[in-house]
């Protein structure tokens, strides 16, 4: 059984919570005591039917206001796959939440109300999915029961979406007409829409091929730290602990360490359950090398003919997540793989309007929830790849030096 992580987003009332509740309910992932507590809560609010949406409102403030504030993670499994849902609310902080959910997602579900069609939020979510290179996107056109299960309406929304998406980079798009409330095309194919030739949403989630989404070409192994027991039993053991970002690392392979540029061979790879011959993403292993070369946290093992570029000048698309705006000449901490450094904002080239994709070149700062193109000068070289090639070595977060808050997220070049 493998693991699929997906993110959901939609505007308020498009039916996102109902959809998730339905997936959990129909896959029997809702427990009786959870159901009892939301039945009670629904009654207390005077609702006639049980509001499955209440399942996803975790915090008191959310229940009181009847809205979802923060990203919530949900889990369900079918015999085929385990699923992790990053449920990102459409309200306050939406961009920040969507970016967070999308950063680890294999797939994004963009939910649209069939009556309303595309909204600002749908465009925003499509843009963010594309910027963060979510490999698979599902356009779920919901509330089909309220538009008479109309094929024309569905086609119209699909056309509008593909027109907008043509300006983006969405490698795999699937559109599914659904009724989250009634369950049509959620688990089983709908009897009300025989014009639809595709699969149900759950079938798609269970079967979408994610194996080839990983980068198995470019060996990148960022070092988290050095394992040196110096015990009587292991006096000379020296291993480099980390999680494989990409590529396949094999025992006997020649590898190059950056930033030193020194080459050696892989002597052994220790996995969590004993030695292994090869390591690939997302394995966490400890690598032993044939020669004693200088290597520590923040360095990367790669290959001589295929390595990231050490650079102090980083061009990136940054999503700003803090109330006080990012300005030129601001100084921040930057965390890239396992390397922490300081950076200064050299230039803000433009702010991206995520609804129209217009680039505002007059912009001089990035406010909360805005996305823009930023040039950074970093105190020591980072070992970066293009985000399009590598989601791990192509991404970073920015940290405020005074408050220590995570204030920004960046994807390199792109």
């Amino acid at each position, binding site marked *: 059984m493998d693991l699929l992580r997906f993110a959901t987003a939609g505007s308020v009332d498009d039916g996102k919570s109902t959809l998730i509740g339905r997936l959990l309910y129909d896959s029997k992932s809702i427990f009786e005591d959870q159901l009892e507590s939301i039945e009670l809560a629904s009654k207390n609010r005077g609702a006639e039917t049980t509001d499955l949406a209440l399942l996803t409102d975790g915090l008191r403030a959310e229940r009181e206001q009847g809205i979802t504030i923060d990203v919530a993670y949900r889990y369900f499994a079918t015999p085929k796959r385990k699923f992790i849902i990053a449920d990102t609310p459409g309200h306050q902080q939406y961009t920040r939440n969507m970016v967070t959910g999308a950063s680890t997602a294999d797939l994004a579900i963009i939910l649209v109300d069939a009556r309303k069609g595309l909204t600002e939020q749908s465009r925003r979510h499509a843009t963010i999915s594309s910027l963060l290179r979510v490999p698979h996107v599902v356009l779920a056109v919901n509330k089909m029961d309220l538009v008479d299960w109309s094929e024309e309406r569905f086609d119209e929304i699909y056309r509008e979406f593909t027109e907008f998406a043509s300006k983006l980079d969405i490698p795999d798009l699937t559109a599914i007409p659904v009724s989250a409330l009634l369950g049509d095309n959620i688990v089983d194919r709908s009897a009300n829409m025989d014009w639809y030739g595709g699969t149900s949403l759950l079938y798609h989630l269970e079967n979408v091929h994610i194996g080839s989404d990983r980068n198995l070409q470019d060996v990148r192994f960022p070092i988290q730290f050095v394992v040196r027991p110096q015990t009587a039993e292991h006096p000379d053991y020296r291993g480099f602990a*980390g999680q494989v970002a990409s590529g396949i690392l094999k025992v006997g392979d020649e590898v190059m360490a950056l930033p030193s540029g020194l080459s050696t061979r892989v002597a052994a790879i220790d996995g969590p359950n004993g030695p292994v011959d090869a390591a690939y993403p997302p394995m*966490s292993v400890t690598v032993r090398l044939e020669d004693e070369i200088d290597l520590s946290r923040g360095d990367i093992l790669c290959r001589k003919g295929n390595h990231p570029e050490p650079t102090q000048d980083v061009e990136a698309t940054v999503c700003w997540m803090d109330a006080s705006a990012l300005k030129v000449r601001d100084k921040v901490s930057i965390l890239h793989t396992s390397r922490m450094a300081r950076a200064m904002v050299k230039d803000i080239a433009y702010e991206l309007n995520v609804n129209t994709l217009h680039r505002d070149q007059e912009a001089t700062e990035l406010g909360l929830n805005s996305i823009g193109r930023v040039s950074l000068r970093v105190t020591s070289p980072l070992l970066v790849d293009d985000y399009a090639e590598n989601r791990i070595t192509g991404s970073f977060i920015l940290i405020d030096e005074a408050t220590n808050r995570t204030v920004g997220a960046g994807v390199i070049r792109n």
Partner: protein
Amino acid sequence: MTQPASHALSQLDALEAEAIHIIREVVAQMERPALLFSGGKDSICLLHLAIKAFAPAPVPMPVVHIDTGQNFPEVIEYRDRVVEQYGLKLVVGSVQEAIDAGKVREAPDGSRNRIQTPVLLETIEDNRFDACMGGARRDEEKARAKERVFSFRDEFGQWDPRNQRPELWNLYNGKVHPGESIRVFPLSNWTELDIWDYIRSREIEVPSIYYAHEREVFVRDGMWMAANEFAVPPEGVPTEVRMVRYRTVGDATLTAAVESQADTIDKIIEETAATRLTERGATRGDDRVSEAAMEDRKKEGYF
């Protein structure tokens, strides 16, 4: 580890890799980390992951137990054995000592659940821990579903759900000022079933009370409580001997057993996959208080 030609990891291997990455980040980023160990199945998995993360070096942080003094004896025996076996350093935060010193007081019903929190916070402060790893999972409870893997706590140990640090990719921000700390949850993405699958596949020993056994029990609030020195049946409430097991292991005054015939790991997994109640809803008196019980306790500094 299975290595099919497709170079794909099973979901359990992927969760293991993620947890080890997180545990290593804690040690790499933080100055004085600790691992909270209750002897429950989640913290047992966490400890085993930590052992794997640093092998063949020893686990480079102490193991902390907040001891309510109302434990199942099987669990304390297990704790001490594991500490000995892996050469760990054990730090005990004693609720009994805090009561004796007049720092905290038991609830009128004898519950020590709520007063664990000040003892935990004092233990963190006394030892100047800047990071505490725990085995909590997001599937346990609604408030937990919104908590970060690296969860920031202010100098009072409080969690502010509306002011959490965004968490992206596999990048974790462990920066704190003196006095502040991070709670870290490497098992955030695991479910109860994943825990049991892991215990089975990695052949991890757990305390015997997780397996079905005969025990003298009585009914309280519709749950089976073990009759012992910590939980005495009220007048007129009969006790009986039943086959039961525990799904969670907490304070002996609060944690209920479930009726079960599952005396092997395979049977436990079968039962867990078929169960219709969450483990907290089924067995934890502490979470039943109100819909927001967990959220309130977390804000005060609880795990």
